[in-house]
Each structure stands twice: as C-alpha cells, then as structure tokens.
C-alpha cells in the first residue's frame, strides 16, 4: 500500500461522496457524473489492490493484520458496484444519496486500511 495514494483515494472518495449527497438531495437521479464518480473510486481501489499485492515484493510490508487489510479492501471493492447496481434498479434521487453513502463508506474503509498497513501496533 502506498501512503500518498491512499490519501488521494480518501480525498477522491470524500469528494465523490459529498457530490452525490448534494446532487441526491437536489433530487437528481443517478447519472453519468455520479456513477462516474463512483467508478473512479472503484478504479482507484483496483489500483490500490495491485499496489498491495506487489508492495511486499519491494520491501513494503503491512505492519498490521494482512487478513484484516484484505477483508477491508474486498469490502471496499464490493461497495461502489453494489451502489451503482442499486441505482440502476431504483431510479430515484435516493439512489444518488446511496451512491454518496457508499463513497463515504469507502473513504472510511481506505482510512482503516491505511491504519492497518502503517501504524498498527498489534
């Protein structure tokens, strides 16, 4: 896991989350912009997954539980597609709010992953 990249992910996910919440409460149904924001969050997660798999080979080992790290990462990877899928089935503004909730949840999960990787004492 690359620390600065994780912070970029948190920033993008928070921005995407706030954007979707605002547009959702402004009664927009999910559109290319909001779905695209979640797709970007997902893309960054996939990149982070590649980094995480490759990092130990370059001497960048997780300090905490690797199992917990990957459970968080996989949960995070599942979240944006689930929210986008939800929005395809349910064409209301609340689906845009759900996209926002999903993006914010990813931000929290990435932050947690960063903690596990860098500052875990256990």
């Amino acid at each position: 896991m690359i620390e600065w990249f994780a912070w970029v992910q948190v920033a993008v996910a928070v921005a995407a989350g706030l954007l979707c919440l605002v547009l959702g409460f402004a009664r927009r149904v999910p559109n290319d912009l909001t779905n695209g924001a979640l797709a970007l969050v997902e893309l960054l997660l996939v990149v982070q997954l590649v980094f995480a798999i490759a990092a130990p080979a370059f001497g960048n080992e997780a300090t905490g539980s690797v199992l917990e790290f990957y459970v968080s990462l996989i949960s995070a990877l599942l979240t944006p597609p689930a929210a986008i899928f939800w929005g395809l089935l349910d064409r209301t503004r609340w689906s845009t709010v759900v996209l926002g909730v999903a993006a914010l949840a990813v931000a929290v999960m990435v932050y947690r992953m960063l903690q596990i990787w860098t500052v875990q004492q256990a």
Partner: protein
Amino acid sequence: MTDVRSARPETRRGWRMSGIGRVLVAVYGVLALAALGRSFVQIVSKFDEAPLAYTLSALAAVVYVVATIALVRSGRGWYRIAWATILFEFAGVLVIGTLSIVYPQLFPHDTVWSWFGRGYLFIPLVLPLLGMWWLATHRPDRAADAA
C-alpha cells in the same frame, strides 16, 4: 419531481423501503458488511484472545444483517423483526458501550459497540434511533400515505 415519482411505479402498500428509508437500508447494509468482515477477521485470527468480545461482535454482525433484510421486506412479520433487531442493537450499544467504559477489563478488545461504537464513527449509536423513528412513522397499515 413528478418524473421521479412516475419513474417508480412499484410503490407497494406496506413497503418500508420508500424515500429516504432506502438510504437507511443502504447504511445498514454497509454497517452489516463492515461488522461481518471485522468479526470474521477477529474469529479467524485471534478468537481465543477475547472470546466474549468476539462472540458479541459476531452476534452484532448477524443482527445487523437480519435488520437490513427486515427493513427491506414488507409485511407485519418483518416489521416486528425489524423492531426486535433494532431494539437489540440499541440495547447492545448502550449496555456494552457503558460496560466498556466502566469496566474496560471486560472488553480488552474492541467490539462494534465498545465506547458506543467509536470505532464506527458512532454510527451504531445513531442508526438504531433513526431506525426506530423510521419504523414508528412507517407502520405497515399506513405506509401508503406516509410514503
């Protein structure tokens, strides 16, 4: 606004998953996923360190999953199950939250509910309140006018 409403023909009588209730369900879903994942990790890697805390974590995770399902499903039976699970969560977060502060040695390892759900941004404390409010305002028999 009108086009949004007409895009949703299947608003069924007694369906709690209308309007902002869907957001509640989504938040419950995320919390259920997070609690399940964490509890899975705890039980697989270090169950013997704190069996009580980790058993509670697993129980809490299962209850969150059931609550999520109960909020989505319609009908009186599911409505009661939703109440039961949400009340259980609320009692859990209050009792375990208080115990974890007063007798920290009982819970040397975190559960979802330790410190009133601090590890989860206090969402476990706030969510049951929102859930109870939602259920109280969306009883199965008058859900049609409330939606």
